[in-house]
């Protein structure tokens, strides 16, 4: 599979809340589905966030910016799958629940942790406008832009996580290596 860094680029969905859990990302009643694609219509169906409507707010999004402890709750991998089925392959958050974060990298997706004050400045500077973000894994920079305004923010992930992302996930990594 050809995975390049520009896989992590596109329109940003801002979710202004802490502790968004896996039940909100994909409700448990859909766990009987037998394909990842089948989860697509249900992403964030139960998100408790005033003003958010999954039917209108998800279209065309490629990344999420949110606050602390994203992905807490159960260990279900259905949460990153539901994101991926909707074309969202990058989540930028103040922090992540451990298993969710590992599941993201296992699926070849990017989970970027930024300090709370940087997240705050992103919400303050961009959340009101149509924003795009591009992650450059080589330089370790996130490029944000909206209405002619741009900002570059450094980020880091571990060597192993970088290798998983480059390979397209743990499955591709393991299939090539072992």
């Amino acid at each position, binding site marked *: 599979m050809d995975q390049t860094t520009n896989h992590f680029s596109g329109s940003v969905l801002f979710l202004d809340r802490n502790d968004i859990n896996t039940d909100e990302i994909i409700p448990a009643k859909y766990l*009987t589905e*037998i394909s990842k694609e089948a989860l697509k219509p249900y992403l964030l169906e139960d998100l408790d966030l005033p003003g958010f409507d999954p039917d209108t707010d998800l279209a065309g999004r490629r990344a999420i910016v949110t606050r602390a402890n994203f992905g807490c709750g159960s260990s279900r991998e259905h949460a990153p799958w539901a994101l991926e089925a909707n074309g969202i392959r990058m989540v930028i958050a103040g922090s992540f629940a451990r298993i969710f974060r590992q599941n993201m990298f296992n699926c070849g997706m990017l989970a970027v942790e930024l300090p709370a004050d940087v997240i705050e400045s992103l919400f303050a500077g961009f959340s009101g406008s149509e924003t795009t973000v591009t992650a450059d894994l080589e330089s370790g920079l996130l490029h944000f832009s909206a209405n002619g305004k741009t900002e570059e923010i450094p980020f880091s992930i571990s060597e192993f996580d970088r290798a998983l992302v480059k390979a397209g996930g743990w*499955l591709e990594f393991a*299939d090539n290596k072992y």
Partner: protein
Amino acid sequence: MAGKTVSEKIFDAHHVDNPAGDMHVISLDAVFCHEITTPVAINDLAARGKDRVFDPEKIMVVIDHVTPAKDSKTAMQGKILRDWARRNGIPRFFDVGRNGVCHALFPEKGFVRPGYTVIMGDSHTCTHGAFGAFAAGVGTTDLEVGILKGVCAFRYPGTMKIVVNGKLSPGVYAKDLILHIIGKIGVNGATDRVIEFAGPVIDEMSMESRMTLCNMAVEVGATSGICYPDETTVEYLWPFIRDEYDSPDAALADCRKWLPDPDAAYETVMAIDASEIPPLTTFGYRPDNVRPVSEMEKTPVDQVYIGSCTNGRIEDLRVAANVLAEKKIADTVRGIVSPATPGIFNQALAEGIIQTFMDAGFCVTNPTCGACLGMSCGVIAEGEVCASTTNRNFYGRMGKGGMVHLMSPATAAATALAGYITNSNLYNG
């Protein structure tokens, strides 16, 4: 340098790679599969053009959660698994008529040995640690990699050692012991760690009881529970390993290499006095909400369920049948028993245990997970209460809006007779 724990020895013997920090890739001796979590993995592998298996001899497959299928969706899950096993030439595939609850069936077939590494897309895979193996539940991507490459990545495990001294009182079983431990250390008390169960009480336990104990290690967050391989382990496995060793003694000597070093480094060591443990049950929706049965006396129940990978084995059915003998369950109670495998069912038939259950007024189902996860064969209604020998009392576990009280088969049987939660000592004395 300090010596090694059991899981450290197993990790080092299965070492493949150390791709980062404390992440270790280890080779797998067995990958177990059932129809709830494997179909997604199969479909994803196929979509990636990787519909292969690393070794059909090391993949064991069962349809156990909803069997026979109850609707089109569960029938399709079974079909995907069945078709996959056939096209990949997997010989150890157990379909309806020969199937049983995975964590009871696979040990009974001799698929787990001391020192083995085992994964499955099922959180109670830790059960197999009873044989001195490292056995862990995993997510779908890990399962896919296990199926495809026969490896899995884990953090190098820290170990908590729990030494159980004293003696279990009459009417108190492995289930009460593990409920006691869960109540004591809490649902996150051993997260990401391995638990070694040691001490005279464990040494005296049957393999069935050890499996009950290790089964619920995940209820304190542990990756695996482990018991030390000994005479009991070898005796249980002897029919499957007799061609490999000259004598049980030779097998035992070989198994001993998996025992921890005397100077192994543990993160925590905890001692428990088994003599102090009364029959226990849970209240509320967390398995660490544990109370003596005596404090829950007279809590009415609508259903009593005896079965599951925790307590659906022959020893469990014997204990329950002993309590039920010549008696009738309360009119207000529905009793359901699911012998966990066809082998257990047969044995129970031969011993007259099935008859005892039926005479007492129980419904005997085929071997299946069924009611344990509220999918079939005994789902409870909103507002109903089930006294159950299973392992999880999460909200809605056995049916939306229902309450589950976890307990031993003895207490469950006594509860069925009374119609409310009660202490088995009243009935088996």
